[in-house]
């Protein structure tokens, strides 16, 4: 697999949300607005990129039997960095995402990429894989957040489109399932016809 494919597969062919159905907890939990989805996606992208780089570099020094705890420590460190930096410089977004930032540690996409890709591949391939997977995840969260915000609040990125109440259901948790289901169906349709 060449480097271009390592990067691009995260967007469409192996998109974490739409194809692998991984990381459903933040996907459903934080996407009530487009900006929340994007913020969560980019925070996860940073963690994925950095943890993939570091894990691909240290994989030779970590004995097989303790690789999982070692990976988790590395991932948790980067998540804490994101948490602290966000609390200091983006307090409003940090408050919105709240508990979901520390929960990136147990996001199965991050550990999944570490196990399945970074621990078997070189540093450049791993970096591209992490970046592509992360941006694909961010794209999916942004799409889902946009759909929910438009339908539920009749606004996009906080800008009101029509001065009226939206369909409240889409802001509430059940709306996340509905919107995600229709988005996956749509993506599958596009893939089949393309």
């Amino acid at each position, binding site marked *: 697999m060449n480097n271009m494919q390592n990067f691009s597969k995260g967007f469409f062919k192996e998109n974490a949300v739409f194809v692998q159905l991984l990381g459903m907890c933040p996907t459903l939990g934080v996407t009530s607005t487009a900006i929340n989805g994007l913020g969560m996606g980019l925070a996860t992208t940073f963690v994925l990129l950095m943890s993939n780089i570091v894990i691909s570099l240290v994989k030779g020094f970590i004995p097989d039997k303790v690789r999982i705890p070692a990976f988790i420590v590395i991932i948790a*460190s980067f998540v804490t960095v994101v948490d602290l*930096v966000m609390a200091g410089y983006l307090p409003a977004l940090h408050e919105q995402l709240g508990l979901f930032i520390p929960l990136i540690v147990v996001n199965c996409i991050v550990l999944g990429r570490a196990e399945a890709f970074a621990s078997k591949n070189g540093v450049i391939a791993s970096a591209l894989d992490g970046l592509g997977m992360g941006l694909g995840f961010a794209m999916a969260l942004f799409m889902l957040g946009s759909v929910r915000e438009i339908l539920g609040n009749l606004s996009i990125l906080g800008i009101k489109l029509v001065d009226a109440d939206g369909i409240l259901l889409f802001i509430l948790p059940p709306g996340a399932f509905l919107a995600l289901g229709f988005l996956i169906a749509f993506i599958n349709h596009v893939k089949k016809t393309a």
Partner: protein
Amino acid sequence: MAKKESTLFNMVSSLVVVTLIASTALGYVYELTKGPIAAAKLAKKIRSIDEVVVEYDNNPVDDMYKIPIENSEDSLEVYPAKKGEKVMASAIRTYSPKGYGGNVWLMVGLLPNGNIQNVAVLEHKETPGLGTKMDNDEFKNQFIGKNPASLNLKVIKDGGDIDALSGATITSRAFGQAIQLAFDTYTKGGQHE
């Protein structure tokens, strides 16, 4: 690259090294972000105080004092807004544990006579689109300028004067309760200078 063998020494030493490096790096990042985090928290507090009290020339955060809540071990934080030595109004950080999603934290601005100057919503986990509407002016205006001594802060359903938010009676109840707590604690707990 050949993997290191999983001997006890290799396992222990590699984990020690990984955790040592990670904790050193995190300590460094913590030191770097400590200042900005404290500044962001303070800015948020001052913003909410500014929202509920007007006209002051002291620093309400420095002058903060606590009043114990009656029949409870907790206390409320009071931020007095003074002009010279005269207390113009007090911003009281109050809460109700009976929100739909746990505690609802409010900042209530009370004039010395007990009139509500303004209310700011600080923290809550109410339902988006229903309970979150407590921050709308339409709802808050029912409280602003009124005195809880004469205004019954319960919702109409419970025999009070407050028109509850549709679909969010519990949130409306908690909102009134939090203000009542601030008023009771402030008027009974002594408005010391």
